């Protein structure tokens, strides 16, 4: 982390960048927030730790409009989002100084709390274990167990776009990316329906999943506009939950980089990535493997086709 701060100070000092976009230490052991830093003094509160899960690439949309370059710290998976945004002309590569930071998996405070830990006073790490002091006694939980879902199906620790790299990464991928999707696919229609009905009934339509999503970068979402007579503010009927999540996933199909931010931020813990990954799995199976954000040029699968593409009837044929 000191290396990051040092390099940021250097670049600020020599005028290479006008500001730094990173994470600022929070007031609890686990709540750092995305923040801008404009001088060394401010950089004193810079932090980079396991709880810096936030993907900063979307902030670069606004940062691209500012004078001068913005130094942005991107984790390997964040660089996919940056590429995708670049492909869609939403960020300006010229305005970004990208330092690719190492990543050994990011932590999920909800995962910690799910294990029954409450009243957290401090969190420290020793040999792959998180030592957690709480008001109700000391606990420990393995780093891997406390990781975000997305890190267990990490797409790799290679940065796809950067100016320089700082820090080491560790492989965290220990599960099959589409396992969750496959599990649902194997259910009967009744089970599928019950599963999603239950998950989606929790949705409070806070739009956190949408607003955090680097692919949902529309200036005005269809669900906020009258273009389709589809403006919604609440799930007054259970249909609206489905409509919102299906269309959202559809709009980002072929563009979603699987950064997992939607699932990370959902206050109701809805596994939203299961929608996006369903499309990814279908795209991979039907149109050839595709990873949005691997580069900033390749045509997305929904703006492309081949003459031999599967017919929609394939859905029924697959059973």
């Amino acid at each position, binding site marked *: 982390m000191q290396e990051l701060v040092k390099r940021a100070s250097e670049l600020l000092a020599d005028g290479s960048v006008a500001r730094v976009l990173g994470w600022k230490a929070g007031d609890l052991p686990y709540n750092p927030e995305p923040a801008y830093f404009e001088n060394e003094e401010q950089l004193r509160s810079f932090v980079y730790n396991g709880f810096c899960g936030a993907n900063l690439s979307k902030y670069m949309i606004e940062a691209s409009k500012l004078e001068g370059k913005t130094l942005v710290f991107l984790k390997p998976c964040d660089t996919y989002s940056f590429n995708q945004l670049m492909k869609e002309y939403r960020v300006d590569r010229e305005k970004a100084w990208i330092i690719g930071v190492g990543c050994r998996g990011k932590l999920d405070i909800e995962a910690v709390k799910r294990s029954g830990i409450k009243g957290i006073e401090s969190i420290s790490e020793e040999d792959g274990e998180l030592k957690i002091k709480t008001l109700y006694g000391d606990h420990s939980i393995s780093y891997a167990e406390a990781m975000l879902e997305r890190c267990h199906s990490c797409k790799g620790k290679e940065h796809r776009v950067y100016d320089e790299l700082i820090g080491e990464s560790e492989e965290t991928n220990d599960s099959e990316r589409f396992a969750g999707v496959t599990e649902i696919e194997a259910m009967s229609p009744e089970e*599928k329906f019950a599963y999603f009905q239950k998950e989606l009934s929790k949705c409070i339509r806070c739009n956190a999943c949408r607003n955090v999503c680097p692919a949902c970068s529309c200036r005005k979402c269809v669900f906020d506009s009258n273009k389709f007579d589809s403006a919604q503010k609440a799930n007054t009927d259970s249909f609206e939950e489905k409509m919102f999540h299906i269309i959202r996933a559809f709009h980002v199909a072929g563009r979603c980089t699987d950064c997992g931010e939607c699932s990370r931020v959902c206050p109701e813990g809805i596994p939203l990535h299961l929608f996006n990954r369903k499309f990814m799995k279908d795209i991979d199976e039907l149109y050839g493997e595709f990873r949005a954000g691997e580069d900033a040029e390749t045509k997305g699968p929904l703006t492309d086709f081949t003459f031999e593409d599967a017919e*929609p009837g394939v*859905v029924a044929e697959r059973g």
Partner: protein
Amino acid sequence: MSITAKTEFKPKIVAFCCNWCSYAGADLAGSSRLSYPADVKIIRVPCSCRVNPMFVLRAFEKGADGVILCGCHPGDCHYSTGNYYTRRRMTLLFSMLDYIGVEQGRTRVEWVSAAEGVKFSTTMNEFVEKIHSLGENVRLGDLRCRN
């Protein structure tokens, strides 16, 4: 059709037809007096690629029991490539609907040329029959539209 006599259920079926092939195919079915159930109502669109997944969901929201899209055969699109996009979009959409537990048979895409009046009528007969077998759409609709 005899199937309407089988039950009281009168399905609502929306058929999006592209102007150049399928709508003309439906016209030909008409002028050839090839009947299909009156439950099917056709909406004319310039090309099947004009059909937004939101239209499909909208139909279900408002109480449709089945939605079918018809377009030119791949390779014959009036706009040369439109139906190729339709094919990918609808494949993914239908797959997602299946994934969340909506019955597969409620959605369908069929390529019908301007010369295929018979195919149009057969397709619609089949589709209506399928919807009859599935019954009323209860999984994907807004209850407020049902009273």
